[in-house]
């Protein structure tokens, strides 16, 4: 083997650190690498801006890291620059979001379409319980339009509802992933809609925003709130399920533990050949398993 104590430099280009999901990814990654004394981790934040992220990855390439992890802000934008990193012989792990060409050593991700399906099925099940038949009024609170997560979380659920003509999406306001906006948009929906059974927030903060709006009008008991993301911690969705705010959420896996695991293998074991793709299955969180998951 080579020099006994080689220091590894790992660069992580994060799409943004403003969403709780992204913040949780950063925190977990920092934590996991901190346990490895021979690895130095650096995180950059692209603030949801493609050009900024491309620039940041370029700057990383100049610094010749031993490994690069990229959570792309958008698919097309990062494809070329990640190719540059590969050309510079830097191993690249693509985190969570796909790019157009396989310009990565390994791709660790989950699946938003599956989450959409799972959410849809959970909602159908709840309505079935409530009315004895699959019918009812659903409000969808949408994230920033055009983003992959938004598209597939929406599409998955709609595909399920399409099978039940009596389940209607009666409103689908856009709240750009933001809790405060969701609260305002939900208030308007509540004014216009006398009867709502389920609110499906495409992320937890928006579902919580909708809950706050309904609670203020004294209508929070009338409907169920379903979110997505299922983050841990005080502010996360799992705690909200435990608190009874949300009926359910889906752990959209951070993918970070797997990514770090793969990364460490690549760094330390030159014979290691990672899979091209690791897919991590989402988990349904309800009051039944929330406490147990929260502990983890």
């Amino acid at each position, binding site marked *: 083997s080579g020099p006994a104590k080689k220091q590894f430099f790992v660069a992580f280009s994060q799409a943004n*650190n*403003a*969403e*709780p999901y992204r*913040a949780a990814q*950063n*925190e977990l990654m920092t934590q996991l690498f901190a346990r490895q004394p021979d690895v130095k981790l650096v995180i950059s934040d692209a603030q949801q801006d493609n050009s900024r992220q491309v620039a940041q990855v370029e700057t990383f390439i100049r610094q010749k890291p031993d490994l690069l992890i990229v959570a792309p802000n958008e698919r097309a934008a990062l494809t070329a620059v990640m190719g540059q990193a590969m050309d510079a012989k830097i191993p690249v792990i693509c985190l969570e979001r796909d790019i157009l060409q396989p310009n990565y050593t390994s791709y660790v991700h989950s699946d938003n379409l599956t989450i959409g399906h799972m959410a849809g099925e959970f909602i159908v099940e709840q309505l079935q319980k409530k009315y004895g038949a699959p019918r009812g009024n659903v409000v969808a609170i949408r994230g920033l*339009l055009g983003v992959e997560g938004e598209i597939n979380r929406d599409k998955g659920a709609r595909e399920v509802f399409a099978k039940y003509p009596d389940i209607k999406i009666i*409103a689908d*306001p*856009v709240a750009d992933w933001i*809790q*405060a906006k969701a*609260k*305002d*948009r939900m*208030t*308007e929906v509540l*004014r*216009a809609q*006398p009867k709502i059974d389920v609110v499906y927030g495409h992320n937890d*903060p928006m579902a*919580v*925003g909708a809950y*706050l709006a309904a609670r*203020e*009008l004294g209508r929070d008991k009338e409907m169920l709130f379903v979110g997505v993301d299922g983050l841990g*911690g*005080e*502010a996360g969705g799992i*705690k909200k399920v435990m*608190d009874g*705010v949300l009926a359910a959420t889906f752990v959209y896996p951070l993918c970070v533990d797997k990514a770090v695991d793969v990364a460490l293998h690549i760094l330390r074991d030159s014979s290691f050949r990672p899979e091209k793709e690791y897919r991590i299955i989402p988990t349904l969180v309800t009051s039944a398993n929330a406490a147990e998951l929260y502990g983890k």
Partner: protein
Amino acid sequence: MKLPAFAALPKNFLALAGIVLLAIAISPVAADGSRVFLEIGNLTDILRQISLIGIISLAMTFVILTGGIDLSVGSVLALSTSLTAMWLTRGYTHSVAVAILVAVAACALAGAVNGLVIAFTDIQPFIVTLASMIGVRGLAKWLSSNQNIDIGFGQDLAAHFAAVFRQKALVIGSYAAASAAFWTLLSRTVFGRHVRATGDNERAALHAGLPVRSTKVWVYTLTGLLSGFAGVLYAAENHQGNPNAGVAYELDAIAAVVIGGTRLSGGKGSISGTIVGTLIMGVLTNMLRLNNVDSNVEMMIKAVIIVLAVAVQRGKGGNGA
């Protein structure tokens, strides 16, 4: 005696009245035949929704009257939400008042720093507050380690705070009180006159020996203070401290001020105008949302109506600076 603050009123009101009438006309009708737009609940929703921007835009009016601008209000609001939630949930204090005081004081301080740099250097307010918009956002995120700080629904201090300060009546009441205070400040006090004089003709103000510098320091301090207070309300309303809150609020606040007839070049404007401007934006959004307009089409319609609303309240004359 005619008060300057009233001067711009009638035409402003015309634009507002037009939009309100339109909103009533196209309002969806509830099952009982009443117009949803006119329901007390909906009307108070609008007031509650505009309160935060409304409060910030009051102080922004003063800043703009002096010929300045403050881009940092959104970041300062975020700092305030984070500080409020941190002090309440992390046991730093057992008093809601102390937590609020800490947050608001920190924000007033941030505003004062803006004001001091602007008053004592030659750097344009746009640059100074752009820098603090970036810097304060960084500070808020750094203090809270990029995390939202959740205020639960339990029985603790934080939950108690949220329950009180998210009340519609309290929020709207705060806005009303702040409006009255700032209207008085502008049109009835010597300070208000100094604010207008500074923006109207800074050289003349210096020649007249008016306290131009301290006036500037004060208006930015007030903006920091009100943004901080808006942040406290935000934290209560959203049950969380959020270092990413308030992005682009500066544009909303400035828009409300300018739609209300205040000139960005300073010297001319009114609090009543700003309130009307804020209401125009609020009613417009509510109207389009109530009618389930596609969010993209909503943006296009909004653009046209903003221009029309401002056009209505302008006669000819004045320059378009």
